[in-house]
């Protein structure tokens, strides 16, 4: 093989990749903002919600029924009842912290109800409804661990988090000396904690309660060291749907449905 051929093949391959990239970007821009959110939902007569399937208490797939259950799921159903008049006219699509924004942007789902914190960064990419749940970041450790608060996360300690979560970004700022390892989902992060890959797992207390619920030999420490107001995310620019969902949120808070759901999943735990 000559050097000339080497360059030819290399350059050709790289050009091919760039062309692929160009096609992809074009698709992204044309697929965009023109569709009207609410009309689309009324046309297909159902709302497609992105929910988590791996987060106990909020969105967890019940393996015996095959259905997803939790606080987020019930909220989504209650909202559907207000928006299109029937709580069964919903479709649930599994999302993770990593996939929820891209899925929303490419129109695969209408709204995300998936323990999603409202942040300034995310507001640039998606639109949020009003806050529907107030969580705060905390730490999960094995009972009897030396780690009692965020100050104990010194150099040499390993903190586990989930890719794409606000907690992963927060912890890098609040405990800059600790090493942060990030996983695909909470199940894997919790398994990693159990198998000793790290000293603490960090995310919103709401999610951590679900893990304690599953395995009581773990406990929360350090209190809430951030505020994590959860919002329902929709595609950027879809203000119609945001308004509609906010109205629905207010209705279910006023008529007691919200408290019922809250008591069912969170308060009684």
């Amino acid at each position, binding site marked *: 093989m000559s050097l000339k051929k*080497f360059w030819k093949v290399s350059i050709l391959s790289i050009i091919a990749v760039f062309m692929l*990239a160009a096609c992809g970007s074009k698709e992204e821009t044309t697929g965009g903002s023109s569709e009207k959110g609410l009309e689309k939902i009324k046309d297909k007569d159902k709302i497609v919600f992105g929910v988590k399937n791996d987060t106990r208490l909020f969105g967890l797939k019940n393996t015996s029924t095959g259905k997803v259950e939790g606080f987020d799921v019930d909220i989504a159903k209650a909202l559907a009842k207000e928006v299109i008049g029937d709580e069964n006219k919903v479709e649930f699509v599994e999302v993770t912290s990593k996939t929820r924004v891209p899925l929303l942007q490419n129109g695969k789902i209408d709204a995300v109800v998936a323990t999603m914190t409202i942040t300034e960064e995310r507001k640039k990419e998606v639109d949020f409804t009003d806050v529907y749940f107030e969580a705060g970041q905390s730490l999960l450790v094995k009972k009897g661990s030396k780690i009692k608060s965020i100050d104990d996360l010194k150099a040499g300690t390993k903190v586990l988090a989930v*890719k*794409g979560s606000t907690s992963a970004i927060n912890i890098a700022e609040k405990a800059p000396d600790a090493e942060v390892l990030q*996983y695909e989902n909470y199940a894997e992060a919790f398994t990693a904690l159990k198998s000793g890959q790290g000293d603490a797992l960090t995310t919103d207390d709401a999610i951590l309660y679900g893990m304690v619920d599953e395995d009581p030999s773990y406990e929360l420490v350090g209190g809430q060291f951030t505020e994590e107001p959860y919002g329902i995310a929709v595609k950027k620019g879809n203000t119609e749907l945001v308004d509609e969902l906010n109205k629905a949120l207010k209705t279910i808070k006023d008529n007691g449905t919200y408290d019922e759901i809250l008591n069912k999943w969170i308060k009684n735990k």
Partner: protein
Amino acid sequence: MDFSILAENMDMYLEGFLKTIQISLLALVGSFFLGAVIAVMRIAPFKPLNWIGTAYVEFVRNIPLLIIAFLFYYGAKMPGFAAGSLALTIYTAAFIAEAIRAGILSIHKGQMEAARSSGLTYGQAMRMIVLPQAIKVVIPPLGNQFINLVKNSSILAVIAGGELMYQADLISLHTFVVFDVYIFVAIFYLVITIPLSLGVGYLEKHLAKSS
């Protein structure tokens, strides 16, 4: 395409790139030697060795690499980098063993018989007569396995291994740019795999000429 993504996150891309190269080199050397040993076991004139070799290949080749990585990471509780490199080595070795075995078997039986009847031991005949011929047959499939190995190293992304794919996941999640981030990753992989593939092609031609 948004080149500012590449520029702003260059340190993460480079960190991942270097880790990917490290893992690939470790697993490449490891899987070559392990694969060669397994291949020899599978064709050795001693039955129990055959059985062990066959069991290894059939067992390892038929489970997903991801599960092997999980076994070492969650099961054996090894750090991500070590668990990933070891899983890649063990997994790739099964395929390399098969490539080497096929290469050796492609050399006519008469070669070995003639070597043995001229007084060489089995080991000598293997080393001096069969293997030098087999290596030429083995190079192309071996090259394919090494290229697969480099790409398979992306599995470390799910066990916090810190390589290219892991870094790309983090970059795309911070910037909310998905497509461009992974296109740059593809280019980084090409930087490793194209020279590898051309190197194998060169070796193949060079060895053919020398015979």
